[in-house]
């Protein structure tokens, strides 16, 4: 049985803040941050946006491209995020209710730093493949925060992408998957702590690069494919530089990675990052194209997928807003003060 993507959709908030504006407040050197991180600006959620609101919009866009799937036939919905609005009360119940998929549905919220979104995709498609459900949705969404003045503040951004999996009417088949995991303490946040901590330089070599390379080489070996067999590749995007560097280490070219490389103007959308990149690739892909996607989550692990795009892709690309359009169309730029209010960094009277 072929299993794959029946519908896909993304959602990006309209607000942005530029690296210069953050650097101005903290007395940091904007050009060196821009160069060092490969970032120019990042998305910011408004006060009325969170993982749930963005997931609903991304899921609606996925359904709009599904060719009329009845939401009541969706048997599972998984949202991966490290910024679920509630500590206790699932995001997925609200999203399932909003898309009309309740009550006959299995719902769970996943957490695994930035890899939680691809986990949702992995499990949802696996249940379809096992024949337990007809359709399943995997969503990656985050509204992550970095501590004020910390390097993470320049990159932590917001966005969501949703993928509806099924076994007929596919727009992309899943050919192979592979996961690569180890206990690596590169980044964490303890209960009740507002901001995460990270082990500085440690986040590079033994963490992001080792796991991304491990999962990508694993899926290439399983599929018997080599980098030049792919039209597109997308990797997790903690900043503008890492995904291009790891891709080149693996043998992918700038051209193969360009369509899914959003972080220079989007920032790091955490659980949303490689899934949103995949949505931008599907927006421009052609029938027969091969796509490699590899996520990364601190702690640490990577999930990789090999997709083959089908003939149906051209019918659905225009049925919901395209990801690059949402990234580039009339962004609203914020000053640091408004941004601090939006991100609730200002302590108010009780």
């Amino acid at each position, binding site marked *: 049985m072929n299993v794959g993507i029946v519908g896909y959709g993304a959602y990006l908030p309209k607000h942005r803040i530029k690296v210069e504006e953050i650097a101005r407040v903290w007395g940091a050197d904007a050009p060196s941050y821009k160069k060092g991180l490969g970032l120019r600006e990042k998305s910011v959620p408004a006060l*009325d946006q*969170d993982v*749930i*609101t963005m997931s609903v919009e991304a899921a609606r866009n996925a359904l709009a491209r599904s060719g009329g799937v009845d939401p009541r036939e969706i048997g599972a919905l998984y949202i991966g995020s490290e910024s679920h609005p509630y500590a206790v009360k699932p995001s997925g119940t*609200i999203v399932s*209710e*909003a898309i*009309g998929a309740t009550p006959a549905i299995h719902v769970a919220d996943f957490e695994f730093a930035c890899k939680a979104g691809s986990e949702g995709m992995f499990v949802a498609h696996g249940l379809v493949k096992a024949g337990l459900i007809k359709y399943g949705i995997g969503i990656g969404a985050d509204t992550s925060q970095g501590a004020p003045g910390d390097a993470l503040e320049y990159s932590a951004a917001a966005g969501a992408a949703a993928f509806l999996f099924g076994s007929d009417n596919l727009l992309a088949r899943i050919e192979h998957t592979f996961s690569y995991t180890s206990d690596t303490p590169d980044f964490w946040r303890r209960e009740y702590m507002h901001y995460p901590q990270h082990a500085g330089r440690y986040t590079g070599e033994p963490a992001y690069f080792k796991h991304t390379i491990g999962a990508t080489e694993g899926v290439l070996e399983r599929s018997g494919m080599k980098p030049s067999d792919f039209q597109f590749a997308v990797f997790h995007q903690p900043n503008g530089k890492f995904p291009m560097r790891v891709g080149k280490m693996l043998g992918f070219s700038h051209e193969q990675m360009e369509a899914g490389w959003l972080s220079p103007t989007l920032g790091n959308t955490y659980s949303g990052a490689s899934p949103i990149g995949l949505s931008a690739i599907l927006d421009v892909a052609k029938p027969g194209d091969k796509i490699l996607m590899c996520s990364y989550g601190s702690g640490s692990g990577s999930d990789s997928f090999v997709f083959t795009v089908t003939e149906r892709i051209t019918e659905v690309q225009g049925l919901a807003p395209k990801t690059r359009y949402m990234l580039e169309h009339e962004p609203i730029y914020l000053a640091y003060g408004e941004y601090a209010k939006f991100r609730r960094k200002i302590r108010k009277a009780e």
Partner: protein
Amino acid sequence: MSSARAWREYPQRYRYEAAVCDQCAKWFFPPRLVCDACGCREFTTKAMRRTGKVLTYTVIRVPPAPFKDQAPYVVAIVQMDDGPRLNVQVTDFVDGQLKIGLPVSLEFRKIYEEGEAGIINYGYKAVPV
């Protein structure tokens, strides 16, 4: 508004479910029991299309307590493409964009939070298309 009332209104707040008169096809949002056009009492539930146009709007500068952080904000009457008129908050517009006739679409947003520890209430707001 209580969480219980918000919960009963999920079909409208989350999915824009309207009542469509079986006799004259007029749309009602929120649903009602008797059609004011033909007196019919039979309706079919349908999800309203999310698109419409701003009929008129006003800026709220001194809002009720739960909406304090959002001030100033815009509330509009939106003529939905399926017929109903909604009283709805408008957001995400750029300077000079908001005007009568502006095409908008409904997005899922937080409406208000019952304090730092309370329930979060979700619903729709209008944004420029």
